[in-house]
């Protein structure tokens, strides 16, 4: 009895490790599958490849050469210099703004979400279900319904066209709260909290020195998703930021891309180099936090 059980369990581990068994498949079949995957990868990667190639070309090269290969010399440094000096270096300003909004906004939002998620998951208080219902219900609210009146309210109190108009909305993120609640339920046992209380620790102390420390993984995931969200935001900044000195990268690139029809200035080369650069922070974040990101991706699907 014990023997069979043991064999069954080892069998399962082995199967999980080299799953699926390649022996069950013919060579030709595998090759066929690989062709499909290679084609799909080419489709996924060629726009990025094209973008990299395009950022190394000057204007003539961009307009007159085959887009998928380098030609006409290496102009990446010229393009970068142009990008950073155009309009008194406004591109750097936009980059700093995007980093500020996404970084500070997500950090504050994550802290708030962790506190809220912890409160919802580990305390029974009147109105708790109502708060959670609001959190989940807000997933369905279209962004236009919130953003337009928010613009009017912000303009009443003089916040429109200031960094606060971007930062304040980032602090309140219901999806982060939802994730934080799920993570708290999974990582913070009641017994631990009881033990800390018996030892005489106050609730704030418990939160800051025990709960937050145990929630590093969950917190990092919440932060990552919020950062990506804010970095990618378009409708909110378009609505609440008017002057270009407060714009985000997305907004600036959008504006440059429309310049050609609006005023006849062709900034295509700057747009492409800028687009390539604006991917970099995102790629760094995602690669550096790959571990957290995977759990986040699968949890995000639950939404």
């Amino acid at each position, binding site marked *: 009895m014990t023997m069979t059980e043991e064999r069954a369990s080892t069998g399962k581990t082995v*199967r999980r490790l080299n*799953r*699926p068994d390649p022996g*069950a498949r013919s060579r030709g*079949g595998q090759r066929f*599958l*690989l062709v*499909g*995957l290679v084609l*799909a*990868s080419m489709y*996924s990667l060629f*726009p*990025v490849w*094209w973008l990299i190639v*395009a950022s190394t070309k000057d204007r003539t090269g*961009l307009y007159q050469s*085959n*887009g998928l290969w380098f030609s006409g010399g290496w102009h990446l440094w010229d393009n970068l210099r142009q990008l950073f000096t155009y309009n008194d270096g406004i591109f750097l300003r936009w980059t700093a703004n995007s980093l500020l909004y996404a970084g500070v906004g997500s950090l504050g939002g994550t802290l708030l979400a962790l*506190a*809220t998620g*912890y*409160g919802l998951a*580990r*305390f*029974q*208080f*009147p*109105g*708790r279900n109502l*708060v959670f219902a609001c959190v989940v219900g807000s997933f369905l*609210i*279209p*962004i*236009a*319904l919130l953003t*337009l*009146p928010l613009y009017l*309210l912000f303009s009443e109190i003089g916040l429109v066209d200031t960094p606060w108009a971007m930062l304040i909305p980032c602090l*309140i993120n219901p999806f982060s709260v939802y994730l934080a609640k799920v993570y708290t339920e999974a990582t913070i046992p009641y017994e631990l909290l009881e033990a800390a*209380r018996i030892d005489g620790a106050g*609730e704030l102390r418990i*939160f800051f020195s025990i709960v937050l420390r145990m929630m590093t993984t969950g917190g990092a995931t919440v932060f990552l998703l919020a950062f990506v969200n804010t*970095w990618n935001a*378009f*409708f909110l900044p378009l*609505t609440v930021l008017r002057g270009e000195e407060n714009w985000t990268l997305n907004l600036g*690139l*959008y504006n440059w*891309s*429309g310049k050609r*029809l609006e005023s006849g200035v062709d900034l295509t080369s700057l*747009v*492409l180099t800028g*687009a390539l650069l604006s*991917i970099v922070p*995102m790629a760094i974040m995602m690669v550096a936090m790959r571990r957290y990101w995977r759990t986040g*991706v*699968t949890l995000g*699907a639950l939404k």
Partner: protein
Amino acid sequence: MIRSQRWKGAAFTVPFQLGFVFLYLLPIGYAVYQSLYHEQQSGLGLGGATEKFVGLDNYKEGLTDSAFMGSVLRVVLFACVQIPVMLLISLVLALLLDAVTSKVAGRFRILLLVPYMIPGVVAALVWINLYSPDVGPLTPLGEFFGFHWNFFSPSMVWPSIGNLLTWHGIGYNMVIIYSALQGVPRELFEAARLDGASEWRIARSIKVPFVRGALVLTGMLSIIQMLQIFNEPALFRNITPQTVDDSFTPIMIIYNQAFNAGNYHYAATLSVLLALILGVGSFLFYRLTSREVD
């Protein structure tokens, strides 16, 4: 739990609650309030505007506004094509990944996820330039094969946006489906193989049914969410304002009403209407699917 402890617990949620009231409830209330009023120019328009209560008149106007309802219909139709195509490709890729060795699968998974790492606005900008007849490689490529396609023409602009969204979304959806496929008990495959089933048959009769429920669910929800599409059409409008007019999608109409026509009351009405359509759609969908499960 001790009473004082409960209140301390509640205190952890208070900052969020205050923010929620200010950033969610207050704006929604304000939008609903505004949707019941109408701005009226007095006399010759010299005395400034006054607000007049009009009840549900704005809603009547919105429901019979052919531009608005047309845009809702157009976006839903688009979503009914784009979302299933995208999910189908993602499903095929997930099945391919599931059928190769895990080492190979790991490598391709990273490659296929690259588009997902690119911000949506940047992805749209890149594709707009790929489509561009001046700098993009797709127009000369088409001509090489004898096609004279114009990606910004009225009949091509939706397929162009659809391709862009599909490109951006397949990697992410593939990962989700792939991780669901990992949950299929492997013993089932061996049993099927012993019974002489081909790999194709196993994929079709065991793997696909296993993820079908989840796929239908995400698909329907994505179709409803597509009502909010704004970024991609707005970026296309930047390039071809003749093809992508300012009433292309519901949110574009709302934005235009608020910031170009200066008609906040009507913009508020339309955003409440859009929220209602989304809410009713999701509700009906949940009723339908939960009945199916029973």
